[in-house]
């Protein structure tokens, strides 16, 4: 897996994930992902459009980081998951905990403090 980050503005960071979020893939990005999510920006948008598959370990990675962002008063949203990934998120009820957006402007608006 690959992970990159870009600043939308002073308050919002967008994290781009690409690759399969299985045990192996998550193992490759886990530490970096946690480091980026721990940045002091108020809003974190995770772009899921390049993730073709996600297993429960991927859900765990998203949840852990969402929790750490929430703990410091920030907002954590997902952007554009592919259909089957979105299905996993909905099945496991994660969509009730982490907001899923299909468009960047909406996502940006939702995390702007």
């Amino acid at each position: 897996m690959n992970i990159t980050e870009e600043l939308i503005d002073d308050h919002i960071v967008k994290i781009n994930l690409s690759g399969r979020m299985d045990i192996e893939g998550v193992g490759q990005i886990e530490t970096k992902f946690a480091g980026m999510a721990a940045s002091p920006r108020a809003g974190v948008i995770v772009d899921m459009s390049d993730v073709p598959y996600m297993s429960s370990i991927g859900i765990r990675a998203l949840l852990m980081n969402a929790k750490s962002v929430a703990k410091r008063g920030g907002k954590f949203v997902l952007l554009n998951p592919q259909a089957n990934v979105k299905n996993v998120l909905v099945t496991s009820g994660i969509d009730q905990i982490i907001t899923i957006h299909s468009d960047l402007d909406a996502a940006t608006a939702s995390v702007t403090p």
Partner: protein
Amino acid sequence: MKSIKTRLLDIAPYFSGWPAPVGLLLLIGLHFFGTLPYQDTLRTFSFDLYQIAQPRERISAPVLIVDIDEVSLHKYGQWPWPRSLLAQMLDRLWQMEPAAVAFDIIMPEPDRASPCLVTQYIPQIDPGLVRQICKLPSNDSLLAASLRQGHSVLGVAGIDSDTPAIIRAPPMRMLGENPKGMLRHFTTALTNVPELEEAVFGHAILSTDIERGIVRRVPLVASVAETVMPSLSLEILRVASGSPSFTVKSAPGRVEAVGIQDLMVPTQDDGSIWVHYSPHDPSRFVSAAKILDGSLEPDFLKQKLILVGFSGLGLVDFPSTALGDRVPGVEIHAQILETIFDGTTLLRPAWALWAEGSVMLIFGLVVIVGFPRMKARFHVLIMVGAIALLVAIGMFAFSRYHLLIDVASPIFLLLFMFGAMLADSLIREEVQLKALEDDLRSQREQAAKNRGEMEAAMRFQMGILPDAAATFLQESRLDIAAKMQPAKMVGGDLYDCFMLDEHRMFFSVGDVCGKGVPASLFMVISKTLWKSVALRDDMHYMNLGKLMRQANLEIARDNPEMLFVTAFVGLLDLRDGELVYCNAGHEKPLILAPGCHPRELDGAGGPPVSIMEDYEYKTQRYRFSPEEFLCVFSDGATEAFSPAQEEYGKPRLSEALSTISSTTTALDIVGMAVSSIEHFVDGAEASDDLTIMVLRWRGNQSNASND
């Protein structure tokens, strides 16, 4: 007792400790004292190689050798020739005006071919005739008379014996210390008959030292008894130049140079020089026969230095030159004269020993200190580079400056140190290899032990899962089967089923995120909690959402690893087929019936357990008909992957389970699902644990079979 490993380690560090530098210094010390074994042989051999690679070119030809060769012997009879014949030849030589004539021949006894001496071999000779014959001059007198006619030189041979002899020598001019004690010394010499010695103009010593058949060094001056004598080459130069003396220049303890007037030749410490050879050349020779029969052009010998010697005799051994030519001894004197004329005499300078020692020290330190810190491929590069550099320096110094620098010794030392280092590292590697093997073995043992423990854990885990079919064998209202297959030895999936009371059956299927040991521990905790909460709490209200909330509170409280579990728990009333269930983030189960396409059991109760600290899970209900099967599975079923990384997926599972009939049992369905998945995966490593539970309410017929 010491192990082999310890003992090897005792030996191995020697190269890196003190012995390597001490050994290096010892070798260099021996080099300075000249006591390194076989170093001289190595050195002279390397000097020979210089000469063989780049033999001297003959520039000037100041010397001609009058050679008493086979032709001369054939024509003028066997050796020794009567000295009257030599006198005759010398007279002819003087007519051709040479610069000087030197004899590489010693004549220690009177010539017995002299007329007076011959008479004693004639029996019954008339005494009057004898008296008359003895009035004739002896052959020695005739030769002495001829020797007086020009610049002539006779040589003596230095010998070590007790017989005293009168040594005649030209005067020596000393610059610096008296060199006598520093020179090649002979106690006495084999001299010529006094009549000839008195007649001759110059006196020289002919001796050279032969090492294993090769003449490499020739003394330009040597001491005989109390006298210092010049060599034949030096003396003929003095005589030809008309100089009254020869010169020896010395520093304390060593001779620096030897020469005539301004022409000084640098020498080794003992007044000798290394002979710089050119190949054997017949044009240096003139047959003595040609002198005697007058067939030579008159100008041929004009102003030349003439050496008279033999080549045609079976009597003398020919020494070898450094080039490997076998030449008459007299040619070596001729070659020395050529090098003095051309200024191409060789010198092994006094500083050479120090320079060689320093190079040895530097390279030795590079090997000892530098090499262990470098990669092995640099070792080879450095070795090749250093050897090539040394050879180039040696060759350049020889060809350009006629200096003899010993590069063989540093090269040998370098190879020796490198060899020692290689041997040392081989020993070390052996030790390391041994240690690695030991490590590997203990790792294997540990792994086997761990595997044993994991197998025990797996048996335990599988043991706490009930055998669904066996548990409800007596319950005719229920047909149930379940299977859990871990991806690793222990898994994170779980299922459970038991009768809560007489009519109600509780069951659960869960999937902990991840796999392996952490997941399995989490799984055991979860399963136990659900069961205990189900048994403890009042379940008459059929409120499974409340049960899920309780369990979630317990599990989420102590969860540092942030693991979570998706779960489907249900309570089936066997009296009416009423199912109460709560789905906590789990895959939606399938409902199967003969002749119908499988469909999903809807209803989401909430997120997976232990994600939210407190959550009000919702309870759902469904009423089964006796034909319907409920198939609950974990994502190990739908998310199995083929070798081509294709996902099995829910549609394939539905397809595989769409062909059931009225006689199909729960166990059949489990088998169908598992074999379909295994066929699809085709031997690829399982990506997740796989759990399937299938159950059917057969209807409320407490004592009837239901086919």
